[in-house]
C-alpha cells in the first residue's frame, strides 16, 4: 500500500527488536473472542486512479453550481475564490501542521491566527476575536452559554431573524445545560418586538443581521435596552461579506458577535467545514471559549506569538473549562484570513458593493413579475420573496430547467403553513446579469 513505508524486511527486523513473532502478537491484549468476530465485508485497497474514478462518478451525480445558475444562500454562500488562496492553504506547512502548541516552530500558524483575530475584530467592530469555532451555529451556542456565565443568568431570547440552525444548535446546547431559551417565531416581514421583551432575567438576546429573511436592522436601541437590563446582546452574521458595506455589529453595541466565515473562506462544499467567528469585548476575554493567539517576545527579545489564556480551556481546566472545543477550524480560518488579506480594505468594500448591486438588480427584475413580492425593504445580497404559489414545487420546477433557483423557506420551517410560499434568494458577485435573466424568465413561466 503506497501510504505505508515499512517493507516486509523492515517489519521482520523490527519484530525481532520487539521480541515478538508477528504483528498479530502485538494485539494480544485484545480479548481473543472479540477479535475472532472481526470480519468485514468491505473493499480492498485501490490505486489512485481507481479512487478518482469511483469518487468522480459519485460527484457527477450532483448538480453543481458551475453547471447551473445558482441563487442559494441561507448561511452558505458561493463567492469567487482567488487562485492564490487555494495555493496558500494547500502549502503543506499550513495544511499538515497540528495546533501550534510548540511556538518556536509554529510561528507561521500563530502569526496567521493573530492576523485573523485582528481582521475579524476589525470587520465586526469588536475588540477581540478567538482563533475560530466549528461554524456559525456552534459559535452562536457558545455565545449563549458565555452570556449565561458572564451574567450568571439562565435565560436566552432568540429573535425570529436568527438562522434556524443557529437557533436549533443553541437550543440544544442550552437544554443540556439546563438553561432556558425562548425562540420567537420566524419573522419574514420584520415586525417582531424585542425591546419590549428584555427583562432582568435575560442573559442575552440573540439577533442576526442581515436577518435570515434578508432584513437589515439597526440594533443600537436593542443594545441599550439589553445593557439597561444587565443582559448582553449577541449579534450573528451569517454572511460576513455584508460587513464590507454595513454598519458593524460592534458599532451597534453588541457584546458578542458570532458568525460563519465560510462565505469568505471556502466554496459552499455542501455546508461544511465552515469557520465559526467569535468576537467580544476585551473585558470578557477570560470568559471566552476557544483558542487565542497572543503577542509576546522570545528569549532574544524578538517578537513572536503563542497560544495564551489557556487556563480557560479543556486541556487545563477540564470540567471547569469555558468550552470543550479542542480541534477547531484552523485551516478555514487561515483561508478566511488569506482572502481578507488579498481583498484588503478596498477589495472588501468593492466585493460587498458588487454583491449588493447584483442582489438589487435581481430584485428590480423580480418586481416586474406578477406573483412575486420582495419582503425586506432593505437587504444585502439575499432576500425573501412571497410567491403566488408554494415555493418548494417552484424550486423543483426550476431545477428541472437546470436552475438552482433559491431555497423554499418551508424546508427550514415545515410546520409553518404561512411560510409555504416564501422563497429565499441570494445573488452574489458570481451571478451575472445573464444568470439573473435566466432565473427571472424561468420564474415567470413557472409562476404563470
Amino acid at each position, binding site marked *: *500500500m503506497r501510504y505505508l513505508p515499512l517493507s516486509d524486511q523492515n517489519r521482520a527486523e523490527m519484530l525481532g527488536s520487539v521480541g515478538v513473532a508477528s504483528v498479530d502478537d502485538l494485539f494480544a491484549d485484545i480479548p481473543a473472542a472479540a477479535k475472532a468476530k472481526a470480519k468485514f465485508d468491505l473493499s480492498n485497497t485501490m490505486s489512485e486512479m481507481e479512487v478518482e474514478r469511483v469518487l468522480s462518478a459519485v460527484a457527477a451525480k450532483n448538480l453543481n453550481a458551475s453547471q447551473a445558475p445558482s441563487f442559494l444562500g441561507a448561511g452558505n454562500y458561493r463567492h469567487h475564490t482567488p487562485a492564490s488562496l487555494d495555493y496558500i492553504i494547500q502549502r503543506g506547512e499550513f495544511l499538515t501542521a497540528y495546533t501550534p502548541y510548540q511556538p518556536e516552530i509554529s510561528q507561521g500558524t500563530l502569526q496567521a491566527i493573530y492576523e485573523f483575530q485582528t481582521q475579524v475584530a476589525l470587520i465586526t467592530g469588536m475588540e477581540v476575536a478567538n482563533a475560530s469555532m466549528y461554524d456559525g451555529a456552534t459559535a452562536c451556542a457558545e455565545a449563549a452559554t458565555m452570556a449565561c456565565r458572564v451574567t450568571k443568568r439562565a435565560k436566552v431570547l432568540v429573535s425570529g431573524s436568527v438562522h434556524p440552525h443557529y437557533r436549533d444548535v443553541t437550543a440544544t446546547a442550552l437544554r443540556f445545560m439546563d438553561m432556558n431559551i425562548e425562540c420567537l417565531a420566524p419573522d419574514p416581514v420584520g415586525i417582531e418586538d424585542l425591546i419590549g421583551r428584555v427583562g432582568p432575567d435575560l442573559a442575552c438576546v440573540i439577533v442576526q443581521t442581515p436577518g435570515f429573511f434578508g432584513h437589515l436592522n439597526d440594533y443600537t436601541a436593542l443594545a441599550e435596552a439589553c445593557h439597561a437590563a444587565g443582559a448582553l446582546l449577541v449579534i450573528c452574521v451569517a454572511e460576513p461579506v455584508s460587513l464590507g*458595506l454595513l454598519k458593524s455589529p460592534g458599532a451597534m453595541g453588541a457584546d458578542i458577535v458570532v458568525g460563519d466565515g465560510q462565505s469568505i473562506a471556502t466554496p459552499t462544499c455542501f455546508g461544511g467545514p*465552515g469557520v465559526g467567528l467569535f468576537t467580544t469585548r476585551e473585558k470578557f476575554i477570560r470568559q471566552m471559549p476557544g483558542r487565542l493567539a497572543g503577542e509576546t517576545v522570545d528569549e532574544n527579545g524578538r517578537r513572536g506569538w503563542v497560544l495564551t489564556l489557556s487556563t480557560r480551556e479543556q486541556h487545563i481546566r477540564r470540567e471547569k473549562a469555558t468550552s470543550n472545543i479542542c480541534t477547531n477550524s484552523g485551516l478555514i480560518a487561515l483561508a478566511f484570513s488569506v482572502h481578507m488579506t488579498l481583498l484588503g480594505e478596498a477589495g472588501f468594500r468593492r466585493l460587498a458593493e458588487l454583491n449588493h448591486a447584483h442582489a438589487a438588480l435581481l430584485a428590480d427584475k423580480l418586481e416586474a413579475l406578477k406573483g412575486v413580492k420582495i419582503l425586506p425593504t432593505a437587504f444585502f445580497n439575499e432576500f425573501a420573496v412571497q410567491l403566488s404559489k408554494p415555493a418548494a414545487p417552484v424550486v423543483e420546477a426550476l431545477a428541472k430547467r437546470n436552475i438552482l433557483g433559491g431555497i423554499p423557506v418551508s424546508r427550514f420551517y415545515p410546520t409553518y403553513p404561512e411560510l409555504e410560499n416564501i422563497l429565499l434568494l441570494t445573488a452574489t458577485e458570481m451571478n451575472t446579469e445573464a444568470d439573473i435573466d435566466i432565473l427571472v424568465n424561468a420564474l415567470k413561466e413557472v409562476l404563470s
Partner: protein
Amino acid sequence: MINTITTSGHRALQIEQPLIFELDTGGSTAVDLPAAPKVRTRLGDLRSDKPIGLPGLSEPEVVRHYTRLSQKNYSIDTGFYPLGSCTMKHNPRLNEKMARLPGFADIHPYQPQSTAQGAYELIDTLAHWLKTLTGMPAVAMSPAAGAHGELCGLMCIRTAHEANGQGARKLVLVPESAHGTNPATAALCGYRVESIPATALGRVDINAMRAKLSSDVAAVMITNPNTCGLFETECIEIAQAVHAAGAYFYMDGANFNALVGRVRIADLGVDAMHINLHKTFSTPHGGGGPGAGPTVLSAALAAFVPVPFVVRGANGFSVVEHAGTGAAQKSFGRMKGFQGQFGVFVRALSYILAMGVDGLRQASGDAVLNANYLRVKLSAELTPAFDGICMHEVVFDDSFLKNTGVSTLDVAKALIDEGFHPMTMYFPLVVHGALLMEPTETESKATLDQFIASLLALARKAKQGDQAEWFKGSPRLAPRRRLDEIQAARKPVLRWRKADVNVAVTKQAAE
C-alpha cells in the same frame, strides 16, 4: 539580545516577516473585481462608509507573506511529528484533489435533494464503512470534531435515560488519564464528573470503578486504547459492569487508529464512540482543524441520533432534517449547521477507499509496530511508564531525568533543534512528566532510527550532569527561542493595533 548578524534581520532561509497590517501600502488590493451594475441601492440607513482598517496589498506581496509564514512552521510534510494522541500521519494529496471536484466543492447543502444524490451517497458510503468497521448499527455524522462527537454521544445517552425514566442520573465517571475534553464535555451535558483511578499497570481500576457505579451514574467514558497507549484488557468486563448498573458505556475513539480492522467496537460492549476522521482517517489537521467526529451508536442509542441524517429509500437518498417527526421522532435535535463536515467526509472516504480494509488493517499493525519499536529502542535510556507491549503510542515518565535538573519540556525543546517535532508532554496526567509518542504507520524505519538516535543522545547528555543550563537554552536553531508565555497571559495582546493604542487597552484588560 537581538540577532545582529545581518542588516535585514533575516538569516538566509529564515526570513522575518512583519504583520500584514505593517505592510499596508494603502489602497491596493490583490483582487480585481468587475464593475458593479448601476442600480438603486436598498441598504436603508445601514450603509457605513467608515474605514474598517484593513491593510491593502498586491497579490505578489500577499503570496510572499504567507509563503514566508508557512516556512516558520513544522509540519508532517516536512518532518516527523510524534505527538501522542494526535495521530500525525501522512495526509495524501489525492484526498485534497477529490474534495475539490466541483461535484463536491461547488454544491449547496440546501439545493433540491434530487440534485444532490451524489452528496448523500458519499455520506451514506462513509457511514457504511464506519458502521462496518465498528460493527455498530448507527452513526451520527454531524459532529465537527472529537470533542463534539463526545457531546453527541452524551446527549444521546442523556436523552435515552430521560426516555427510560432514568433522567435522575447525574454523574459521569471518567478515568484520571482521560483527555481534557471528556470531563469538559460531560459538564456541558449537565453532568457532574468523578474520576476513576488507574492501576499500576496503567489500566482502569475496575474495582474502584465498580465501587462508584450506582443508580446515579449515567455513563462511563473510557478511552481505548487509553491515553497511556495501552489496551483496556478488561474492557468487556467494564462494559458489563456499566450496563448492569443501568449506565451507558462511552468509548473515546481518538485512538481507534490502533484497532481498525482488528476488532469491532460493538464486540467490546460499547454504546457510543466518536471517530476523529482527522486522526484515524488521515484528513489534515490544518494547524488546528477542521476535523470531523462521526459518532457510532449502539441499538440502545440509535433512535436519539441528531438531525440531519441521510436515509435511503426506493427513489434514492433523502435527508431527515427535523427532530420530533417521522424517522427523527426521538432525535435529540441539531448540534451543527447544515450536513456536518462534508469536505472532511470526502477526504476521509478518499483515504478509506485507497487503503481498503486490508490496507487499514495493515496500517493499524504498522502503527503498533512502530510504537513498540520506539518503546524498545528508547528504553535503552528512557524509562517507559508501563511494562509490556503498547498499542499505537508509548509513554515514558521523567524518572530518567531524575537529579539532572533537566525537565521533560527541556528535552522536548532540544528535540526541536534536532529537527523533530516534540512528543506530547505532561499528558496523560497520571504519568509523571509524561513523554507520549505516537509515530503512526506512515513513518519509515529510517526516520524512527534517526529520531531514536537523537533522543537517546539527548537523554545521555542530560544524564551526564551539569547540562541543565544547556537544555534550558533550547531551542537555539528554530525561528524563535523560547517564548515568554507568562507575559503573554499576564498582559494579553490579542490583536494588532496602531502603536500606542494597544498599550492602553491591554492594560485595562489585564485588570
